[in-house]
């Protein structure tokens, strides 16, 4: 095969990050190239078409659709207030008139002589796009949005729920093996992004919601707890729109899984820094992983040079590479690749596949693992 892909998540101390901030419909861009923006600054704005309400006016008035225009008090393009009559029957001798009233302030969009329907559209709904990350505007897409650039640490999680949030990072555990329980969260965490270790308990999530924690970053999470606090099961991995007060990002997976030391140490280094996070995850077609962005100001030209070097490409699997096993029976363990036998090997399942031999970093034992079941740490 021309390419071999090893799924890997980025854990990078310094990266140049570009964020496209695009309106759902054409609108107005409010910033210009070179502007410095904060995460909550509005960079573009537009109006979505208002809510539509259809009135079967001819039916209500008891007239033929063709005759409807004769009974209209308002015409296409006119605004009507909530409760205002816009069509009316003649009644008996001008009495007992049947009226059609607008349910909310709206504008007459069409009057159909074919169906007898009148379509009213409410006021446009304003939509604003924020910068999301602290950084600099580097590109304007006219009428659509901007690209914000920031230089900083960049960590991808494996799964998340909840959308874009920002706040100060607070490391609430001392090692990546410690679970995050409710005793480690207090009022001082309000508005913050809290980092735990191996696991976040259900009661901790509940407390975080109550306190007003903006985000939780954890190694593992129990699916049953996720179901309990969302109130439903996530069937397909498309997330980010959950109506929850706290965004949750899982770095390793489901279950009790210590956060990778490298990830933990990186986050720990930036304890107290302003970070932007997004739990949005989409695993199908155009993979989106949850992300943690820590904008940095104190970087040197050498740091930037390192980025350039790193961007030269993914080397794929190689002997000596550090990998994480992402499937039972060694799920979550970190290992160093010791050999990459080219021939297919038979697994316990009797399936023949390409494998690697690896040595686990924690106890030095070795194992044969399908190549499909490891991921490379990218840095």
């Amino acid at each position, binding site marked *: *095969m*021309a*390419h071999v*892909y090893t*799924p890997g998540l980025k854990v990078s101390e310094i990266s140049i990050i570009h964020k496209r901030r695009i309106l759902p419909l054409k609108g107005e861009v409010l910033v210009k190239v070179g502007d410095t923006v904060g995460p909550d600054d509005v960079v573009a704005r537009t109006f979505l*078409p208002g*809510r*539509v*309400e*259809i009135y079967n006016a001819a039916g209500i008035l008891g007239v033929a*659709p063709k005759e409807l225009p004769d009974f209209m008090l308002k015409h296409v393009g006119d605004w009507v207030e909530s409760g205002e009559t816009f069509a009316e029957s003649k009644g008996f001798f001008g009495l007992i008139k049947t009226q059609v009233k607008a349910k909310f302030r709206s504008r007459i*969009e*069409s009057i*159909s002589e*074919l*169906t007898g*329907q009148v*379509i009213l*559209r409410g006021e446009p709904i304003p939509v604003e796009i924020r910068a999301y990350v602290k950084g600099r505007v580097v590109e304007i897409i006219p009428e659509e949005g901007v690209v914000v650039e920031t230089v900083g640490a960049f960590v991808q999680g*494996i*799964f998340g729920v909840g959308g874009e949030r920002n706040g100060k990072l607070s490391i609430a555990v001392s090692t990546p093996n410690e679970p995050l329980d409710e005793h480690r969260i207090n009022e001082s965490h309000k508005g913050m992004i809290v980092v735990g270790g191996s696991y976040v308990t259900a009661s901790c999530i509940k407390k975080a919601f109550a306190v007003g924690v903006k985000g939780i970053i954890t190694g593992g999470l*129990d*699916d*049953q707890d*996720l*179901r309990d606090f969302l109130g439903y*099961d*996530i*069937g*397909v*991995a498309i997330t980010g729109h959950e109506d929850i007060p706290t965004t949750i990002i899982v770095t390793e*997976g*489901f*279950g009790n899984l210590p956060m990778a030391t490298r990830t933990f140490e990186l986050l720990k280094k930036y304890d107290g820094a302003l970070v932007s996070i997004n739990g949005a*995850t989409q*695993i*199908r*077609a*155009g993979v989106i992983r949850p992300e943690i962005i820590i904008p940095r100001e104190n970087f040197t030209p050498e740091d930037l040079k390192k980025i350039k070097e790193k961007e030269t490409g993914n080397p794929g699997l190689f002997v000596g590479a550090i990998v994480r096993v*992402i*499937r*039972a*029976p060694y*799920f979550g363990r970190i290992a160093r690749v010791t050999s990459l036998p080219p021939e297919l090997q038979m*697994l*316990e*399942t*009797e*399936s023949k*596949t390409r494998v690697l031999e690896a040595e686990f970093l924690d106890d030095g034992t070795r194992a044969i*693992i*399908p190549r*499909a*079941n490891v*991921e490379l740490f990218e840095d």
Partner: protein
Amino acid sequence: MMKSEDINIILATDCGSTTTKAILIKKINDEYRLIVRGEAPTTVEAPFEDVTMGVLNAVSEVSELSGWKLINENGELIRPTRDSAGCDIYISTSSAGGGLQMMVAGVVRTMTAESAERAALGAGAIVMDVIASNDKRLPHEQIERIRQLRPDMILLSGGVDGGTTTHVAELAELIRAANPRPRLGIAYKLPVIYAGNKDAREEISKVLSDKVDLFVVDNIRPVLELENLGPAREKIHDLFMEHVMAQAPGYKKLMSWTDAPIMPTPGAVGLIMKMVADLEGIEIVGVDIGGATTDVFSVFKGIFNRTVSANLGMSYSISNVFTEAGLENIMRWVPFDIDSRELRNRIKNKMIRPTTIPQTLEELIIEQAIAREAIRLAFIQHKAFATTLKGVQRVKTVAEAFEQEATLTLVNMLSLNMIIGSGGILSHAPRRNQAAMMLLDAFQPEGITRLAVDSIFMMPQLGVLSTIHPKAAKEVFDKDCLIHLGTSIVPVGLEKEGKEILKYTINFEDGRSEKGILKFGEMRVYELGVGNKATVTLEPARGFDIGQGKGKKIENEKVYGGVVGIIFDGRGRPLKLPEDKGLRISKLKEWFRIMNLYPESSLL
């Protein structure tokens, strides 16, 4: 394009959402045969954003494996064949970039809207939503929904020819008010196909033509008793090429390479299945279980149907299978215990890391249990959809037609001749017997049914090939596409465990014969190799049906061999597993042993 008899080398690709698969077909001794297949990751998404890169990578692999040069120094396909290099025709299907996503609308949910849905599904689309005048949503909710969806195109139907025009015009007004935007490409107008009452064409055009790109085709339901899906399907295919594909990265180039229009993958599968069913006069059910979706295809009484269960799959959607089937239904196929919290986590971990494979037998058994449930649920949806036209079967008057409730499904398990499975979990099962058992448990075939898997999912390429070279498509389908697993023989009925339900005699071609009595709750397997046939005489017990009616004997019926053989399944229909856990596990182990599903060590 050259004359079909002059075509010697055929190259075909299927650009899937994750993998692009290429096959090379050659004419050898006047017969077309598959030579080799290759694959490479699809390159529609960033950073590549050019589908042809993946195509060339897959074709390069085919070249390397076959030693037949197909690409020149400039990175172009060599055509036609010359000097032991190149191909005579090149064709492709595509489901990359999310495939074809449609919204359909019709006046009555179970009538014109359902016909529109059938047309779209048959053309290979994913139907994002069905809007109907009577779908119980308020107009503003429908408008909001249409606006959110951003489909590739809309199929609008409604009314019989000469009937009332008001309702379908109302639907058009709804679409106009929503002002829907296409998924790909900001610059072009959304294509809308109108396939409703011909008397409403002018009105529909008045309402919609300035807002959308409107195309008018013949009514899909010209009269209540007739469904006319062809013109709408053809239009969908044309627009898929001209509008949808043209917007996807690299497709303009790919379209310039192909000798036949690029088809949506499932639409092409439908073509080949229909062709085979028609040629052989058989009834077929096919399933393609993927990571995100499960497609079920069927041809009964010559009518082709396809359904897509959008959220039933083995990786991206695996968690949804768990949610919809429930823990108990999944675990009933597993001969050991596992903590439910642990199982939930494992399933979610597969969802977030979809490319992993089971390393242990325990994991394999659990995945195959989930596959049974995904297929079972997808097949339930298919049976509910693949029906005779609603409102017309016993119709005497139009009013009566409207009163009629859900009608009979076309799916008849007793008359079904063949089940074809495809998708990684079935095609790559370490033992073919596992695929056979998954098909048996999920579909629960009745009577005599052949089982097969499409080992490399070649049906899409063969489907599009059938449009320009039916002979080549049929020959490769017969010889190289399917791996025949064998024939299942299943008496329909229920009895107490251990009671005799079927007497049988098998006469093999070599003169051997086997006689036996199948008891309720029992399975038996007889070897009968690929390409071999045998005849069976089957005498069901009273209350059991093997295809001719309860208690009625079948004599000298031909059965076909395969890598598994002849499977007698005496577990009864509908299949019910013992409620007692211990008993269930012991029965599962017994069946697994007889079917030789897993290494003995896993069943101790």
